[in-house]
């Protein structure tokens, strides 16, 4: 049995602990008494995954088995999570490929001809053919690309349909092909408690008109946290939309969860607790760290971006979204949840090289903000790990780098909008509409590989709750210019960061370090 997560209290017997810092990592001697949240050990993966997928498909929850739903002449749409999941990308074969192949085999046997496969990329950039092939596999790709395998296009007016409004007046506008199908099969990977369930369709196949109802400052400030669906206003909105979708189309959702084997064996030490490192792990640490530092920036990024996680799959469940998702969430919690006693004055996070929006790309300052203040800060249940008015210390170099193809609107957002204000409400009311409807951004989103014009705003909103909650945000090793532009502070060392923080939290603050990745979600009591 794998060990549960726990909170380490740093004492004089504690070796220096690993902290991720962008495309690199370091060892840090944390102050005595610092609490360190460790995730549960990686759970064992399912041995016979194909058999487990077959079991799930043939024994779904709240719906007939898939073979009974497949009829000749029907319109079948298979929707799957895009490349923002999982992180880092999974070693092939991707679990989505395994599931999709089994679904298509059943469809072929049932004589279904009209099959369409759509990546639920929402306002994310389109996936390249190579990326699509990686996810669905060679056979599926050859059989369906390019006519019947592609990305969702949230700006293709002809292929969007408004299916109605929720009782809160939220417009639900989704992909027409999916909504007019006889059956939608959704294949997802639930990496964090945020994704999956009602979010899959209502976000993945939505348009800006629909997304603005939950991707806004008000909702995100009331999502505490957005990784805890019952307490997340954003998820309440998804739920309402999901009910409407459920009335409109039959959805057969197949949800999968992965374990915490985040790094390949060559970097196995990143998956282990530091005092359990053997000589080989220590040698690997020195070799990888030195090699990483000596590499030119481009080569370093290429190597990090080609890192593939040897994830094991911890659960495959199928059925209607509302009934499958609780099981999926339980699986996620089993792998990630660690109980923490009380909030701290200072929270420390080591930000890694990857977030959902820079796969095969560059992590720009906005994405760093969204990863730190959005994703990592919100990896909690009940209460944030840091108290109201406390300080968050992030480790990241925050370089002033943007991917011109993938993130064009980010560049303008950073250079023109953030210089005006960093207040999410101001940004939302004054500038969002303009970016969302800019025809050039729309063009780049549809025809190039750019994130939608409004996406940087969403990234900023992602951190809205943290911005409101925190008294101070400090980046250790951060670029002074970029951090200052975003309204944060930069420090060269942890000691300096704590010195800066002493103005808000005093000289002897309580400190909690969230030791992630591998992902850990704090259940703060």
């Amino acid at each position, binding site marked *: 049995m794998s*060990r549960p997560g*726990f*909170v*380490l*209290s*740093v*004492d004089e*017997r*504690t*070796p*220096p602990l690993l902290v991720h810092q962008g495309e690199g990592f*370091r*060892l840090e*001697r944390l102050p005595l008494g610092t609490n360190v949240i460790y995730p549960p050990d990686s759970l064992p993966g399912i041995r016979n995954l194909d058999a487990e997928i077959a079991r799930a498909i043939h024994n779904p929850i709240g719906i007939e088995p898939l073979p009974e739903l497949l009829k000749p002449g029907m319109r079948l749409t298979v929707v799957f999570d895009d490349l923002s999941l999982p992180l880092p990308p999974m070693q092939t074969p991707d679990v989505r490929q395994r599931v999709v192949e089994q679904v298509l085999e059943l469809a072929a046997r049932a004589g279904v001809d009209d099959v369409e496969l759509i990546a639920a990329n929402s306002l994310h950039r389109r996936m390249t053919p190579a990326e699509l092939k990686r996810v669905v596999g060679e056979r599926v790709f050859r059989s369906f690309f390019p006519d019947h395998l592609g990305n969702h296009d949230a700006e293709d007016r002809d292929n969007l349909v408004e299916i109605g409004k929720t009782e809160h007046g939220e417009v639900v506008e989704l992909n027409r092909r999916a909504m007019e199908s006889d059956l939608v099969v959704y294949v997802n990977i639930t990496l964090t408690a945020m994704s999956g369930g009602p979010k899959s369709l209502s976000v993945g196949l939505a348009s800006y008109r629909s997304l603005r109802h939950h991707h806004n400052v008000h909702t995100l400030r009331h999502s505490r946290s957005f990784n805890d669906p019952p307490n997340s206003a954003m998820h309440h909105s998804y739920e309402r939309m999901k009910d409407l979708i459920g009335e409109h189309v039959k959805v057969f959702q197949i949800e999968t969860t992965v374990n915490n084997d985040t790094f390949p064996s060559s970097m196995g030490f990143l998956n282990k*607790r*530091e*005092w*359990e*490192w*053997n*000589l080989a792990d*220590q040698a690997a*640490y*020195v070799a990888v*760290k*030195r090699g990483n530092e000596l590499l030119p920036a481009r080569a370093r990024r290429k190597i990090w971006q080609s890192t593939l996680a040897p994830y094991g799959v911890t659960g495959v469940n199928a059925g209607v979204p509302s009934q499958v998702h609780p099981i999926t969430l339980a699986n996620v919690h089993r792998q990630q949840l660690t109980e923490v006693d009380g909030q701290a004055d200072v929270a420390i996070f080591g930000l890694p090289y990857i977030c959902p929006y820079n796969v095969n790309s560059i992590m720009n300052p906005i994405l760093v903000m969204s990863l730190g203040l959005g994703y990592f800060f919100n990896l909690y249940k009940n209460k944030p790990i840091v108290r109201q008015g406390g300080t968050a210390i992030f480790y990241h170099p925050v370089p002033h780098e943007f991917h011109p193809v993938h993130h064009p609107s980010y560049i303008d957002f950073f250079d023109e909008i953030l210089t005006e204000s960093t207040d999410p409400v101001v940004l939302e009311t004054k500038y969002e509409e303009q970016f969302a409807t800019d025809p050039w951004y729309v063009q780049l989103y549809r025809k190039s590989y750019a994130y939608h014009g409004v996406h940087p705003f969403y990234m900023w909103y992602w951190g809205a709750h943290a911005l409101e909650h925190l008294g101070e945000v400090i980046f250790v090793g951060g670029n002074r210019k970029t951090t200052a532009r975003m309204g944060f502070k930069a420090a060269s060392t942890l000691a300096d960061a704590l010195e800066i923080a002493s103005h808000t939290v005093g000289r002897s603050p309580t400190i909690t370090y969230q030791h992630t990745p591998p992902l850990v979600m704090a259940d703060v009591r």
Partner: protein
Amino acid sequence: MGIRDEIQLLRHGRDWRGRSTVPRSADPYVLDDGEREFPTDWARTRPGRVARSVLQRGLLKPVTWSQTRPVVEGVEYLENLRGPVVFVANHSSHLDAPLIVGSVPRRFADKLAVGAAADYFFDARWRAVASALFFNTFPVERHGQRRLRSLAVELLDEGWSLLLFPEGTRSEDGWMSAFKSGTAQLCVSRGVPVVPIAIRGAYAAMPRGRNWPVPGRPRIAVRYGRPLIPVEGEGFRELRERMMRAVARLNSEEDLGWYGALRADADDTLPLPTRRQTAGSQAVPPPGWRRIWESTRPLEDRRRRRVWTW
């Protein structure tokens, strides 16, 4: 950061094998399954006995006798004794067992098993193997939180003599403490004779915390007393009292002489350890540092003085 600093940081708090100390809060809670009984039967097989005999006579006794100067008295009391007996001794040093094993008559030494604390001698495999090989130890539960099947009864029935230290642990200050009841219960129930042994000077020679005797071959007195045979109808408490008195008397022979110790016993002025120190009891041992002071006093050298020195 240079590679040297990097490695220095990485090596911080790790030993040469790269193993780190485990933070206290990360120390795993180990459930005591009670099944961790270390097998010692092999030490009582014929090859085990031969090996032990060679090690005891060829290594243990020569080393002990070369590092200390034991004076053994009272072995003649064992002459007419047959069959399994239980040796009981005060315990103040790791030297106690080698001294007794090296001084008992050979017919007993060849069939002697030593009771050793399960939580100390049997918690690490190497220590368990070494002590079973050299002393034919068997695990004894001192605290009774785990009910380990006791081997003592079985061994007595098989004809093995036992060496037990009824105090249950080595003395902190060299003074004898009260005996636990287990040994007395065993002897009463099986009707086996008890041979009291007192060891003086072992604490001074090698107290707790030392793993080699102090230099200068200190004198150690090993005194055997007359066997105590449980009489009909005697309870274990009475026997325990007799054992304790006998060992205390042998112990004070060093200071009072044989007859003086007998008189002190008769007059009830022997310094007897009790579980509760009552205010009125006589010969209360001195408190605190004076106990250690007394027990580390070198024994008087009773060798004949040389008449001529030059």
